[in-house]
């Protein structure tokens, strides 16, 4: 289990090579991505001015149960607070310019480099809708299985240059899994994610159960509510400790 994440990611290169001769049988990435966006209601997602998502996060092996609240404001702002008993609040945010992280272990940090690229791109609602303009390239690389579901693996190259992989169900068009390498202050960490239990909130759908595997551990995030607002009066609040770093 410990090695599953990195092995999957490592295996991608091999998978891409082995299917090169069979790529004619793979559906075009653009079509898969477009179908996904249409299926989840991507257009409605892009119109939302304010989305507040709440839920819980469980790491059964470690006995950790956390709660989280994510606020996204158009066009590209977000803040997320995860509260873990015995640890405290873990905060990340992006105000359109500055990305930050603050947790009891490492203290306040301004995000830079790949970490900043990542939060900048993902704070944009077009990322969730998989709008094509965010990517410089997309390619279907394999007909595979993630979790228990067959899916087409699509390699996405973001404008920042980072690469991630989505896996789309040939039957529903939904994203059933993804793979990426996350930048952290400690180094890059491969992550494999399985999405399930898609539910409709207003005019768009989100997977309410997300299972991530990394470093041999598994964590399950369950969304309990998604509220769409007008954005009026809502703001992203940069913690004072982060403000101090910005002024420095």
């Amino acid at each position: 289990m410990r090695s599953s994440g990195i092995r999957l990611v490592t295996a991608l290169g091999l998978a891409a090579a082995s299917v090169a001769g069979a790529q004619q049988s793979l559906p075009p990435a653009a079509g898969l991505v477009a179908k996904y966006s249409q299926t989840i209601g991507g257009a409605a997602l892009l119109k939302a001015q304010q989305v507040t998502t709440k839920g819980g996060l469980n790491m059964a092996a470690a006995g950790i149960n956390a709660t989280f609240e994510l606020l996204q404001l158009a066009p590209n702002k977000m803040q997320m607070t995860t509260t873990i008993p015995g640890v405290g609040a873990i905060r990340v945010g992006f105000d359109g310019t500055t990305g930050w992280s603050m947790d009891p272990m490492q203290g306040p940090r301004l995000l830079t480099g790949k970490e900043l690229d990542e939060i900048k791109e993902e704070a944009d609602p077009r990322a969730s809708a998989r709008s094509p303009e965010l990517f410089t390239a997309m390619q279907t690389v394999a007909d595979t299985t993630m979790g228990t579901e067959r899916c087409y693996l699509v390699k996405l190259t973001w404008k920042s240059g980072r690469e991630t992989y989505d896996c789309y169900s040939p039957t529903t068009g939904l994203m059933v899994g993804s793979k990426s390498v996350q930048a952290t202050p400690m180094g890059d960490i491969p992550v494999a994610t399985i999405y399930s239990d898609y539910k409709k909130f207003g005019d768009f759908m989100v997977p309410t159960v997300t299972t991530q595997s990394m470093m041999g551990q598994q964590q399950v995030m369950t969304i309990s509510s998604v509220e769409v607002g007008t954005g009026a009066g809502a703001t992203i609040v940069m913690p004072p400790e982060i403000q101090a770093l910005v002024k420095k």
Partner: protein
Amino acid sequence: MKKKISKFIGALVLGGCASAPPSTRVSDVPPQRLETSVAVATFDSVWSIVRQTYVDTAFVSSKWNSVHASLRPRAQTITTRAGLDSLLGDMLGEIHDSHFYLIPASVASEVKSDDSGGNGTTGMSVRIVGEGALVWRVENGSPAALAGIHPGQSVQRVNDRIVRESVKKVMSLAEAPRQRALSDLDFKLNGPLSPPAGDSVHVSLVGIDGKSFERTLVAIPKKGTISKFGNLPPIAGVVTVDRRLVGGAHCNAGVVGFNIWLPILAPELERAVKNLADCDGIVIDLRGNPGGVGAMVMGFGGFFVPSTVSLGTMRTRDLTLNFAINPRQVGAGPYSGPVAILVDAMSASTSEIFATGMQRIGRARVFGQRSAAAALPALMNGLPSGDVFVHAVADFTDPRGGRIEGAGVVPDEIVPLTEADLSKNIDAPLEAAVKWIQSLRHSS
């Protein structure tokens, strides 16, 4: 956005792994006769565990199969315990790491069953000194203090454990596992002294005057911030801060001590460092601190370091991760005065990572006794023979590439504990650290 969660959970997991305090173990006399089938099964188990978890996969893929092939025929002829020990010694000797060893079956059960846990305290703690153990600290007003127990007294028994016999067994171990075993015995002696509140512990001592006496101490609730983190039992975290003043108001040294690396203590630690920012130097007392969440060293270290620097590298089979310091602001920047760190045989895991890292990057001078040498995430697996196999599942190296596991933190100034100092309430390692800070002040 979901990805943002996992980054930090990853840090927690890593810390959790790195934080496990060493288990207790001492040597014992093993039974001599052994069924051959048990020997073979034990041999196979040890071999398989290494194959599945040892971080040096190149070694595993290139040599481990041949080790199995060459040694397994011997396993099929073994009929004695000594024969198995010899065989496993030969097999594990192929791994050039110091932290692969067996805990004999006769003491393995102690490892599994005798973690005292709880959040009570008798107010006394002990340390192995020479061939025995001495009372190290006694909290004012505690059950131990009220019972007339003082630092420097010789500890003969803790419940059923005869201290000298246990120390003697540890001293009989080979050099490589001895340091950890000594540390483990320290934990073993101190564990029962912190039973759940209301429980009692029986101790036998010899006073400074040479007279023996016994006491039954009933634990009272431990002071501190109670934290429940994951599957760990509730833990009382304690941060102590002391400003050593001279001339009325001048702080010649600030001392911050804490008993465990728990995130819940992070705000207190930040306040402590800021409170001591005007001192000539800061002493970080990690004696008795068995570790905790490893990622905390990156934040706490940031109070003393102006730029990002690694305190060491952890390497699992899949990942190489740096413990990179995140510079923090104590005032206009991080604290820039001299930093001393105190360690002893009960400083383990995260404490060792921090102390060695700060020492290696030249930011701190370490005082005290050699630490527990238990800085790697290690697992224990039971074997068919009843022994327990202790094996690291990751590697950790300090900023210079040196290992802490098996070696411990070697203080820049080793300051031994003595009965004379303890009986006079002299904290010799702390005094040495303060003296060093003052010497820097005067020289500058």
